[in-house]
């Protein structure tokens, strides 16, 4: 009996180990490739997890390229401004929508359900943007997802958990809604705000399709440029022919890998925070993602 149990346990561990390696190796491989020195590139196989030799040539080339820098700046700008606006709008709306005695609440909830379950499609979104004269403007990508209904619901769940006695006590002391939100809800729901803020950040950083149709080329964020270069294989979008000739010793594959790494570094930096806040919230409060 004891031996049988052990065999089954070892099997479980093996399965999970293999699965986790299937997710770890491709990412580690890309990172290793991007740091490998150019003369050792042919030695790198798909299973290599550590760079052979060490070189920053890909990053030097990418991070001195004006188009990449421009895209990086665009991404940071869009992500930063959007996230601040998102968290602000989401907090305020969640506060209002969790007021139990709000008149007209059912209409607002109805709108939310409609928005959640009915998407008008890409042409309609484009036409509305055009109508608002926002095409080609940073505001188009900042505004089109000012509130994500799912994240709003996460926030509302957190707000609903705040003890009523605290709110009543504040009300007796004469605090209005503004004060209650600022002094009670926001400090208590800080983990929720960080969680939602991080999810919004990831969303905006990773967005590719909508920015590519709403924005003109000089305002493209990193992901759109990455798509052009890595997925569509359109190298001329960032590198002029002369640069390729000048740096003939660089490998095209390694350059792609370097670009991918630049795009995932912010995600990898934020990831531990997301794990800490999101999983903690999920495990404790049963928040649905």
């Amino acid at each position, binding site marked *: 009996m004891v031996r049988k149990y052990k065999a089954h346990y070892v099997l479980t561990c093996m399965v999970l180990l293999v699965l986790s390696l299937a997710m770890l190796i491709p990412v580690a491989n890309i990172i290793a490739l991007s740091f490998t020195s150019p003369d050792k590139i042919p030695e790198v196989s798909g299973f290599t997890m550590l760079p052979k030799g060490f070189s920053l040539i890909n990053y030097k080339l990418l991070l001195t390229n004006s188009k990449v820098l421009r895209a990086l700046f665009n991404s940071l700008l869009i992500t930063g401004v959007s996230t601040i606006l998102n968290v602000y709008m989401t907090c305020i709306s969640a506060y209002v929508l969790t007021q139990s005695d709000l008149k007209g609440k059912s209409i607002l909830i109805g709108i939310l359900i409609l928005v959640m379950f009915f998407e008008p*499609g890409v042409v309609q979104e484009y036409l509305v943007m055009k109508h608002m004269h926002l095409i080609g403007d940073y505001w188009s990508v900042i505004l089109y997802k000012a509130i994500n209904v799912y994240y709003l619901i996460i926030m509302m769940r957190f707000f609903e958990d705040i003890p009523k006695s605290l709110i009543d006590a504040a009300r007796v002391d004469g605090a209005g809604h*503004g004060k209650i939100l600022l002094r009670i809800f926001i400090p208590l729901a800080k983990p929720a705000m960080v969680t939602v803020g991080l999810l919004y950040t990831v969303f905006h950083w990773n967005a590719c399709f909508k920015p590519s149709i709403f924005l003109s080329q000089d305002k493209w964020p990193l992901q759109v440029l990455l798509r052009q270069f890595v997925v569509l294989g359109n190298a001329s979008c960032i590198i002029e022919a002369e640069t390729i000739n000048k740096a003939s010793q660089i490998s095209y594959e390694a350059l792609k890998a370097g670009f991918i790494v630049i795009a995932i570094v912010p995600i990898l930096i934020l990831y531990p925070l997301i794990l800490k806040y999101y999983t903690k919230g999920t495990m404790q409060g049963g928040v649905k993602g």
Partner: protein
Amino acid sequence: MSKRNHVFNASKNHKRQSFKCYLKQNGILYVMIIPAIIYFSIFHLLPIVGMRIAFEEYHLQGSNEWVGLKNFVALFRSSTFLKVLLNTLVISLMKLIIIMPIPIILSLLINELKQKNFKKYVQTIIYMPYFLSWVVIAGIWLSLLSYDGVVNQILNIFHIEAVDFMKSEIHIRWVLIFSEIWKSAGWNSIIYIATLMKINPTLYSAAQIDGANRFQQMWYITLPELVPTIVTLFILNFRLLLNAGFDQVFNLMNDSVLNSIDILDTYAYRIGLLDGQYAFSIAASLFKGMIGVILIVSTHLAAKKISGKGLW
């Protein structure tokens, strides 16, 4: 009679006063929600209202002409649309049936782990791909699946001939399935792991005393506890039957596999924004939206009837 009237008036007065009082106390709430209302009106309700274009013939100059269901009829007569619809259904159903159970199995496996460090390592790694964009994943998978990529190298060990997966119409749908699993199965297991952690451990002790082995414990205790979560997620996913994952397909698609993975959303994008046939494209989107609403309402009602608990 007069007394009654008096009481009536008093209550009316009281009501008016209490409403005034309510507004004075809570009017600020309506001010606070105004930005959100404006946002939803402009970016969500306005596009929905604008979908009436689906019933019109779009003219660049002058006003549009009402043509009723003409666009929809044309849509269903178009062989491309029917092919795209079939693709969408096949890919969605494959995803629903093949992918749904994987997070459940993962959560059961992770739940068995006893070494805390190993458990933490596994969770940290398998949740991570969820946060990578489809562009990045497409970039990584393109090299994985290329002719001399890792997958073909592994297949070579088993003497299976190399395949160019990204360009093969037969294999590309499976690429969609596996890349979807790679990206989100880990993260989607969180909700099940959270449910598993809430199961009362005395249930297992009692079962062990009764002589139940681990498999029986899983079958009779763990799985029934997971059923409500599974049902809810199934309904939520079923509603997406005509979605099939736009971002994923958009990034993994190329001309040689267009036939087998062109889905409704990519079709609407192509004929709408690239070819400029707005009315046609919006008709396709409206069709998709309506089916989505029908699906969500009917699955909700079915779930309510079966388990007594719907979505809302």
